[in-house]
C-alpha cells in the first residue's frame, strides 16, 4: 500500500473514522440524538432526523462503501431488512430469479412476503449459467444469489452472471455475507448490489444485528436510500458504533478464521465418519478454481460436512460439542455449529430441502478464532459419540 492509495486493512481502520473536529477524539463520538438542531426555519443542516441520517451511521456507511469499492452504502437494522429494501425496488408482476442455495430467511421473504405484492420468484442453480440464461423471462427484474452459497458453499461465477444480467437489463444483487469484503468484492466483478448480514463477519463479535447494502451506481443508491428513509429499517447508533469497531479487525479476523477452517476441512475430509466436506478451499470442491480466482488464498470460515448418520445422530453430534456453540448465525469470534435441516434451513419446504441437497446428516460449522487443535479435538470427541 501507499499513503495515497491505502490498502483494505488501512481503510478499514481509518475511512469513516476521522478525528472529531470538536474535541480531537481519536474515535468519533456515538450520536444517539433522534433529532438535530437546524440552522434556520426551512434551512436544513446535514442531519435533520435520525431516520434520514445520523453521523454515526454515516461514518459506518462511508467505511463500508470504501471497503466494497462502491459509491455509497446503507446500514439497516438487520440483513433481512437490507434484502427487503432491495425487493421493494420491484413492482407487481415482476419476477425474482434467485439461486437455489440461498439463506432460508431470503427464501421465506421471496416466497411468503414478496408474493403478497404480486412479485413472483423462481429458483435455479446459480452455478449453472445455462440454467440461469434459460430461466430469464421478460418479467425478471432482479437476480439474487449468494457469493458463497449456504449451506453447500457453492461459488458463483460473478463476472459471467453479471454479464447475463446486464445483457438482459436485470439488476443483480448478491449476499456476500460468507465472503466478506476483505476476501471478495462483488462490485468489482460487475454486480449491482452487494448485501451483508453485518451481524456476521462485519460485526464479528455476536453482539449486534445489522445489514448493509453497497452499490456502485449513484442513481441506484438514491432509489435505495429513498426506500430506506420511507420505510425506516435503519441501524441504531450503538450497533453502528459496534460494527465500525468490529470492521477494524475484519481483515485479520477473517484471514485467521479462514486458515483454521481450511485445516479443519482437510481434517474432516479424511475422517471415517464423514462422507463429504463442502469447503471451497478444498481442490475437489466444484467451485474451487472459481473461488481461487475471486478470493485469492483465503476461502472463508464456513465449512459444511455430511456425517454418516441419521437426523437424530447428527443432532446429537451438534449438541455434544463443548467449544462449538449450538446456534444459528455465524461469523463471530466464537465457533458455532448447527444442523441446517432442523435449524437454518427449517423454513425451506421439505421438497425443496431434498431438491437442494439439505440432507439430514449435514452439519454447518462457523469457525471462530479459537485454535485449530482445540476445535479439532472438540469435533473429534463429538463425532466419536456417534459410534458409541
Amino acid at each position, binding site marked *: 500500500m501507499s499513503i495515497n492509495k491505502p490498502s483494505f486493512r488501512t481503510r478499514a481502520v481509518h475511512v469513516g473514522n476521522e478525528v472529531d473536529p470538536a474535541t*480531537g477524539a481519536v474515535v468519533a463520538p456515538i450520536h444517539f440524538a433522534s433529532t438535530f438542531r437546524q440552522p434556520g426555519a426551512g434551512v436544513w443542516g446535514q442531519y435533520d432526523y435520525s431516520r434520514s441520517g445520523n453521523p454515526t451511521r454515516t461514518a459506518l456507511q462511508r467505511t463500508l462503501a470504501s471497503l466494497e469499492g462502491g459509491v455509497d452504502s446503507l446500514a439497516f437494522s438487520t440483513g433481512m431488512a437490507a434484502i427487503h429494501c432491495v425487493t421493494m425496488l420491484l413492482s407487481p408482476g415482476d419476477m425474482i430469479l434467485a439461486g437455489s442455495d440461498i439463506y432460508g430467511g431470503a427464501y421465506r421473504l421471496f416466497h411468503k412476503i414478496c408474493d403478497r405484492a404480486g412479485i413472483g420468484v423462481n429458483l435455479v442453480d446459480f452455478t449453472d449459467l445455462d440454467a440461469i440464461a434459460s430461466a430469464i423471462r421478460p418479467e425478471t427484474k432482479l437476480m439474487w444469489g449468494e457469493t458463497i452459497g449456504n449451506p453447500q458453499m457453492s461459488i458463483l461465477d460473478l463476472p459471467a452472471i453479471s454479464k447475463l444480467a446486464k445483457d438482459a437489463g436485470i439488476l443483480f444483487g448478491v449476499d456476500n455475507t460468507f465472503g466478506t469484503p476483505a476476501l471478495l468484492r462483488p462490485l468489482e466483478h460487475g454486480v449491482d448490489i452487494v448485501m451483508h448480514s453485518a451481524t456476521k463477519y462485519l460485526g464479528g463479535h455476536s453482539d449486534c444485528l445489522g445489514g448493509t447494502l453497497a452499490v456502485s451506481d449513484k442513481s441506484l443508491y438514491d432509489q435505495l436510500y429513498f426506500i430506506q428513509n420511507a420505510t425506516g429499517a435503519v441501524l441504531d447508533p450503538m450497533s453502528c458504533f459496534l460494527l465500525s469497531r468490529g470492521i477494524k479487525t475484519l481483515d485479520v479476523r477473517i484471514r485467521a478464521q479462514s486458515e483454521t477452517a481450511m485445516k479443519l476441512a482437510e481434517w474432516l475430509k479424511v475422517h471415517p465418519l464423514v462422507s463429504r466436506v463442502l469447503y471451497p478451499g478444498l481442490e475437489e470442491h466444484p467451485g474451487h478454481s472459481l473461488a481461487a480466482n475471486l478470493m485469492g488464498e483465503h476461502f472463508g470460515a464456513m465449512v459444511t460436512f455430511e456425517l454418516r448418520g441419521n437426523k437424530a445422530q447428527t443432532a446429537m453430534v451438534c449438541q455434544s460439542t463443548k467449544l462449538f456453540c449450538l446456534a444459528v448465525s455465524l461469523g463471530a469470534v466464537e465457533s458455532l455449529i448447527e444442523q441446517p435441516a432442523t435449524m437454518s434451513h427449517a423454513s425451506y419446504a421439505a421438497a425443496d430441502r431434498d431438491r437442494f441437497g439439505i440432507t439430514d446428516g449435514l452439519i454447518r460449522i462457523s469457525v471462530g478464532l479459537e485454535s485449530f487443535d482445540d476445535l479439532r479435538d472438540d469435533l473429534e470427541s463429538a463425532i466419536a459419540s456417534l459410534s458409541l
Partner: protein
Amino acid sequence: MSTQAVHAGELRQKSEGAISTPMYCASTFTFESTDALLRFVEGEEEREEYGRYGNPNERSVERKLAAMEGAESAIVYSSGMAAIVGLLMSKLSAGDEIIFFDQCYHRSREFCTKHLARFGVVTHQVKTGDFAAMDAAINGRTKMLVSESPTNPHLTCIDLEQFVAVGKAHGVETLIDATLATPFNLRPIEFGVDYVLHSATKYLGGHNDLLAGVICGTAEQLESVRNLRGILGSVNSPHNLYLLERGLKTFELRMERHNQNGLHVAQFLDSHPKVDRVYYPGLTSHPSHQTAASQMRGYGGLVTFTVRDADWKKTSRIVDAAKIARIAPSLGGVESLIEQPLVMSYYNCSPEDRQRFGISDNMIRFSCGIENTEDLIADLDQALSQ
C-alpha cells in the same frame, strides 16, 4: 429542578447539531499540531487530552450534577465508594483524623477503619446526631467530619446547621453523603456543608443499570481531588456517563413518585398490626422527623421496618413472599427492591456488632421504586400476611 435536570451542563450547540450529547468512547484525543499541544500544556486552551483526565461526556454530566446540587463543581467516579475514597485520599495525610457519625454505610466504615488506618489516618466514630460528642472528639489533627443524611438503614436525619456549626467552630471541613436524600429533597451546600457525596448508582442514575459516584463542592476545594482522580484512575466509562445524563432528565419526576411511594408505604406499614416499628423520616414518630421536616422537601423512597414477634426466619419468609419487589442490594431505582439487612449486608457481622449498629434480626429494608402505590401496598400486605 426539572429544567436544570434536562438542560443544565449540556452544550447548547452540540456536535452535528445533535439534540443529545453524543457518547465519546475515545480513550485519547488528538492534537492538530505541536503548537496546539503547547497551547494546551501552557494552559492557554482548555480541552481534552486523555480519557483518564476527562472526557466530554464526563464534563457534561458533571456540570449538570453541580447545577442540580447548587454546587460550583462536581467530580464523577466509577462508583460511590470510589468517590468517597477519592475525596478522603486527597484530603487526608498520615496523622490526620476524621470523625464519623456511627450510622453509616458499612463499606465506608470499613474503608476508614481498615484501610485509611494503614496510612496513619485515625477514624473516630461518635453516636449519630450527638454533636457534643463530635465536638469533644475534635482535636488539632481533625480534618473532616463525615455523616450520611438520612442514614442507612435507620433514616436518621442530621441537623445540618448544627453539623456545619461544629465544623466551622474548629475550622474542620464537613462531608455529607446525601445519597438517600438526593438534591431533590436536600441541598447540603445551602447549609454550608463543604462536600456532598452521592452514590449516583441510586436515585441519580435511577434505573438500576449503572454504577457511579459523585462529589460536589467548590472548584478550589475539588482541584486536588480531581488531580488525584487523574492519577488513581477511578473515572467512569462514557457509556455510564451517557446513561447517567440520560437518567437525570427524569430525575424530578422519579423523585416525586419515590417520595410519594415512600410516604404511603411507610404510613401503611405504621398502621399494620404485624409491623413493630417503621423507620421513615416522614412519619411523626421518627426521632428525626422535626429535623427532616425543616430541611427536606420530601423523605425519599427508602423505608425500614421491623416485624412484630418475628425471628430472622419468619422475617425472611415475608421478604420471600414479596412479588413486586425483588431481593437485591442497592436502592433508588425505578424497580422496588427488598432486603433483610441481617442476611444481605451484615451476615458476617458478630451479633454484638449487629446490636451496636442497630441491625435487628427482624428488620426489612424496602426501597420503593416508581410502581403504582396501591400495587406496592397490596403486595406488602399479602407478604405480611404469610
